[in-house]
């Protein structure tokens, strides 16, 4: 396990075709005006269409076998970005390249193939499983449709998927409500893996679980990574989990990537003021009776984000330039990118 980690760290800076590449991804959600709204606008009422820039011009590439942790607070666009990467949601602008080819330009069998290669595991194991389907159908339906198994081989195929996710195959005729939270999350994992993906997007997949169950699921993720050579985009607000699992960490704030770096680097030498304050806010089990460090203020509404650097109203180091100019994401050390004017 640790040997494969070392390897992926060692090859970290060798240019190699990434498995997934995001180029200038932007996702906007628009609330169109209804008839009354349009009428009121014509009559001079100060109403306009509301646009949320959930994801704003994000570039990211993920190499084969890498675990990338995507961190941010609620409303920062991390889940939206995850959905775009998983192919569930089309981007408003920008391109998603799958092994160098634009997913949007693929057709027919190729497009289907690309979609199957990336699967998603969701946060809420209670809401992401159809309560009226038996476990064997939840897990086996998609592989059957896509021809990965046949009617005859269905039972063996499903058994194998369940066993791999740590579930007893004799339970496959049960319904989701008969399982505990941790077991349900395993069903979600078995479902995602049943279509033989190479790339998994885990959106807060352990956030709803108890600590002891969370450890079991995290260990399962690491085992599967080693066994099946999987690549992960691991979305979480829990820095402890991300630190433990990821090779590289990407920090988002209000739709933009503010910093990305290899795991050790970011936890040892965080550069962006937001990352620094985020790290100091995390409660640590090693800490005793300490003063909790605080960032002032809250995340502004994404409907009306502040100009310039989105973080400037909360930043202790903000100066005039931060209020007008958006800082570019620049490399400050090998593999370490940060978007802050303090870096010059």
């Amino acid at each position, binding site marked *: 396990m640790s040997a494969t980690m070392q390897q992926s760290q060692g090859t970290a800076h060798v240019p190699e075709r990434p498995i997934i590449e995001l180029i200038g991804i932007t996702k906007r959600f628009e609330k169109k005006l209804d008839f009354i709204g349009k009428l009121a606008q014509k009559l001079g009422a100060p109403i306009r269409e509301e646009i949320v820039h959930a994801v704003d011009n994000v570039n990211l590439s993920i190499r084969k076998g890498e675990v990338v942790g995507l961190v941010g607070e609620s409303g920062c666009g991390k889940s939206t970005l995850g959905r775009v990467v998983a192919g569930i949601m089309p981007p408003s602008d920008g391109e998603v390249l799958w092994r160098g080819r634009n997913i949007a330009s693929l057709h027919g069998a190729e497009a289907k193939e690309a979609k199957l290669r990336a699967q998603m595991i969701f946060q809420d194991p209670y809401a992401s499983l159809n309560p009226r389907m038996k476990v064997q159908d939840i897990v086996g339906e998609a592989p059957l449709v896509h021809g990965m198994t046949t009617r005859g081989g269905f039972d063996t195929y499903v058994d194998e998927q369940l066993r791999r996710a740590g579930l007893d195959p004799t339970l496959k005729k049960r319904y989701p409500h008969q399982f505990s939270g941790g077991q349900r999350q395993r069903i979600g994992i078995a479902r995602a893996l049943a279509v033989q993906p190479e790339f998994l997007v885990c959106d807060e997949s352990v956030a709803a679980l108890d600590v002891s169950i969370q450890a079991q699921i995290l260990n399962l993720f690491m085992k599967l990574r080693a066994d099946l050579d999987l690549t992960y985009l691991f979305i979480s607000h*829990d*820095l*402890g*989990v991300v630190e433990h699992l990821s090779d590289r960490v990407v920090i988002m704030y209000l739709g933009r990537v503010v910093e990305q770096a290899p795991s050790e680097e970011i936890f040892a030498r965080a550069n962006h003021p937001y990352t620094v304050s985020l790290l100091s806010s995390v*409660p640590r089990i090693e800490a005793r009776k300490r003063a909790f460090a605080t960032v002032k203020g809250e995340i502004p509404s994404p409907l009306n984000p502040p100009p310039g650097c989105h973080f400037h109203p909360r930043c202790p180091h903000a100066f005039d330039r931060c209020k007008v100019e958006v800082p570019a994401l620049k490399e400050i050390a090998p593999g370490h990118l940060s978007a802050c004017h303090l870096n010059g």
Partner: protein
Amino acid sequence: MSVATLEVRNLQTHFFTRAGVVKAVDGVSFTVGRGKVLGLVGESGSGKTVTGFSIIGLVDEPGRVVGGEILFHGQNLARLSEEEMRQLRGNRIAMIFQDPMMTLNPVLRIDTQMIETVLAHTKVSHEEARQRCRDTLGMVGIPSPEERLKSYPHQFSGGMRQRVAIAIALLHRPELIIADEPTTALDVTIQGQILAEVQKLAINTGTSLIWITHDLSVVAGLADDIAVMYAGRVVEDGPVSEVLDKPLHPYTHGLIGSVPSRNKRGEPLRQIPGMTPSLLKLPPGCAFRSRCDRATAECAAPIELMELTLGRHARCIHPHMEAVAA
């Protein structure tokens, strides 16, 4: 510790369901001193919330406090009538819930709700009550409290709503606050802000706190003492740094081992096998024994909470004593 604000002795809260008796809290004892913070830690279903609800008298049917004493300044709360309890609740004992919308009425303005709370327990003029609400909102870090008083709950963000709920709990300067996972639903930076405020308040006002949570990292920085619950019982208690650095009970040991930051990066986490047992028809003896790597045949016999070293108790006959000896 001579004059404890709260002393819970052998508390038993059972739920009489159609499927049988669920012993959600089964013999819980702990003490909270004046101005002290007790972290009550456990996973879902361990009975930590029901313990909190039992103290403040909010256990609903089919649940009932069937045994034990809840001594608040020496007065047994379990024996009080509903009316006497109402006089205490919100006045000398307050509760903060995980979801602030459980405290707040969505169709009333904040000032209406807060002033109502003040007037329920003290005879002051409307204007004085308003003044007190304004001051309390300012105290929990809400900017421009005068204007915010006129807002409705939906106009606040999640973190601000939780601050309002905390302010309501603080209105009467209670001697004891029971906080049930109040920062679980919040972002880390907001959680940090709330924890800082709460810590400041506990120090400045001498209020005792019971902080119920599943997150060991939160209590590590906040609490003085910690009580770990498993399947309706306290399995270990003691001063925070002792329990977290040298856990005695195998469950506490495993729980701390499961925290990712306690493990080497990339290595498999030390996990506890299996899952929490159903509280229905829990066999006698140690409830953790089916998941425990130290369990022996003797563990099937009932085990009491024992004082193992000075000020530290654990409900285990095979504790990790080597940690304490070292």
